[in-house]
């Protein structure tokens, strides 16, 4: 996703001189081509994320479309107040990009586990929050976010669901994509863990449990219509996110459905329940440890439909 992001932003920057990329001194080798080809549209702000975000706001208020870039929690939680007060309150076109959602940097430890970001950014007024599930969604999201007025957050995962787009398909911010049809259950996934949800759906299908799979690449604004349809037309909803269960995708689904007066027949959140992870490991390893993998999704689905 990271390489797709840079390639897509490079294409945009070649066409639109307003595009401006600021890194917080990260992106070794991956940003070199952008820096070389677009020297007037690139800046390394140093290891100073608060200043990076303030700079981005100042540049954006004078007409630029700015992307701030760093990994895990550095471009998000460290300058959270700058994102809230400076960028978002001023409707500045600042697009915060975090590389390494969830356990993408699983071996690096708690500082690099980005597992609360979706909940936090959902809470900021006016923000558009996007967590693509594959490279195509990432590619489309970059252009969509640049055009989107105001401040946005783009969470990029190390894992990707692979190519899921259909010929002629168009990407719309705030509109979920239906990747599998089925009426037993709906799996609603966000981020690279979408690939795990699809794997689980394929396994469940062989057991006669046909699942609808929604890629909810946009967490805010949330596609409530797609969720209402899923609640009405299928036997239950399982949310899938590599993120705390508190306040992320699962929370957003529960809040909006309950408020809409549409209660799914069953509901379960696949997400991080254990709190901080003091153990490390690969993204796949930690997904297994914390029951975010395909067997865990399948088990939840079987329980939900009463299958053995």
């Amino acid at each position, binding site marked *: 996703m990271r390489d797709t992001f840079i390639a897509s932003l490079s294409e945009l920057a070649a066409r639109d001189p307003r595009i401006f990329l600021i890194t917080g001194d990260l992106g070794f080798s991956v940003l070199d081509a952008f820096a070389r080809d677009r020297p007037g549209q690139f800046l390394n702000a140093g290891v100073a994320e608060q200043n990076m975000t*303030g*700079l981005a706001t100042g*540049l954006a208020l004078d007409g630029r479309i700015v992307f701030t870039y760093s990994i895990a929690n550095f471009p998000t939680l460290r300058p959270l107040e700058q994102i809230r007060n400076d960028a978002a309150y001023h409707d500045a076109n600042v697009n915060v990009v975090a590389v390494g959602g969830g356990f993408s940097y699983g071996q690096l430890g708690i500082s690099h586990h980005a597992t609360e970001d979706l909940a936090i950014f959902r809470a900021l007024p006016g923000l558009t929050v996007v967590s693509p599930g594959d490279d195509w969604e990432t590619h489309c999201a970059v252009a969509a976010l640049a055009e989107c007025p105001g401040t946005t957050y783009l969470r990029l995962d190390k894992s990707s669901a692979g190519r899921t787009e259909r010929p002629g398909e168009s990407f719309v911010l705030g509109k979920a994509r239906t990747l599998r049809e089925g009426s037993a259950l709906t799996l609603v996934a966000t981020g690279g863990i979408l690939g795990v949800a699809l794997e689980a759906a394929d396994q469940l299908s062989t057991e006669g449990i046909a699942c609808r799979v929604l890629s909810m690449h946009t967490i805010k604004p949330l596609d409530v219509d797609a969720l209402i349809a899923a609640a009405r037309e299928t036997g239950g909803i399982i949310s899938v996110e590599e993120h705390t269960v508190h306040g992320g995708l699962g929370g957003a689904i529960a809040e909006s459905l309950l408020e809409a007066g549409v209660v799914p027949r069953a509901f379960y959140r696949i997400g991080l329940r254990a709190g901080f992870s003091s153990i490390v490991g690969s993204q796949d390893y930690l997904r297994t440890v914390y029951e975010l993998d395909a067997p865990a999704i399948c088990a939840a689905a079987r329980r939900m439909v009463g299958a053995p």
Partner: protein
Amino acid sequence: MIEPSAGDTLTPSLAERAAKTIPLAGRIRRHALHMTSSGGSSHIGSILSMSDIVAVLYGDVLRVDPSNPSWPERDRFILSKGHAGAGVYAALAETGFFPVEKLATHYQNGSDLSGHVSHKGIPGVELSTGSLGHGLSVGAGMALGAKLDGRRHRVFVLLSDGECDEGSNWEAILFASHHALSNLCAVVDYNKIQSLKPVRETLALEPFVDKWRAFGWHVVEADGHDHEQLLDAFAQAAAHADSPTCVIAHTVKGKGVPFMEHSVLWHYRTARGEEFDAALSALHDGSDQ
């Protein structure tokens, strides 16, 4: 300021220019006293401390157009010490950005004139602040953008001394000198008192000038209540082409009201009743009318 008229051929002296900004400072102080008193808000000491700086900027130095607040070539001013917002609202009203009558709504229910300066619905405010340590980074971004585009407007950011405790400022200070943002001018309202105690008893800033210089800034010191010195300091900043300039303005917290001067109390206390009358009387008697 208002653009010089086409017929001007003589450059006014500092004294002549100060003769216009000094009365503006007096009006800002009196407005701020009324606003904080009727609203029951804090920070009158901080506003009185910076009133001369704000008057010199809005009355003379800034190239802005009240009839076209978003004029692209305007100079940008950011009040990073947002708690003194009433002083900027007063300056904007007095220089024609919005009617003076609006000031009476400050701090009232439903008002958009918040205690900490806000841009929403207020012509002329570039940046809403209130949490310290934000303004200089945004100002540096504006200055960088202007420099990249070859545009000639300048960016001014007014900070408090206590605000210099915030690490984010030092990120911006490093950045601005590294990128030689000579179109950026920071002003520190150095009244030597912060929220609870004197600066030297909280987190000492001295040797303050040396710190800015060590970070690569051009530094000009001025008496922050002497309009001619301030005008001269801003002229030096404009003439300095190699690096950003910091004007360290030595000020007195509560300046203009003797019983508020040098006092932490008036960071918080609201003047009411006899105190209000005495303060207003002092401001009428002052030399800045």
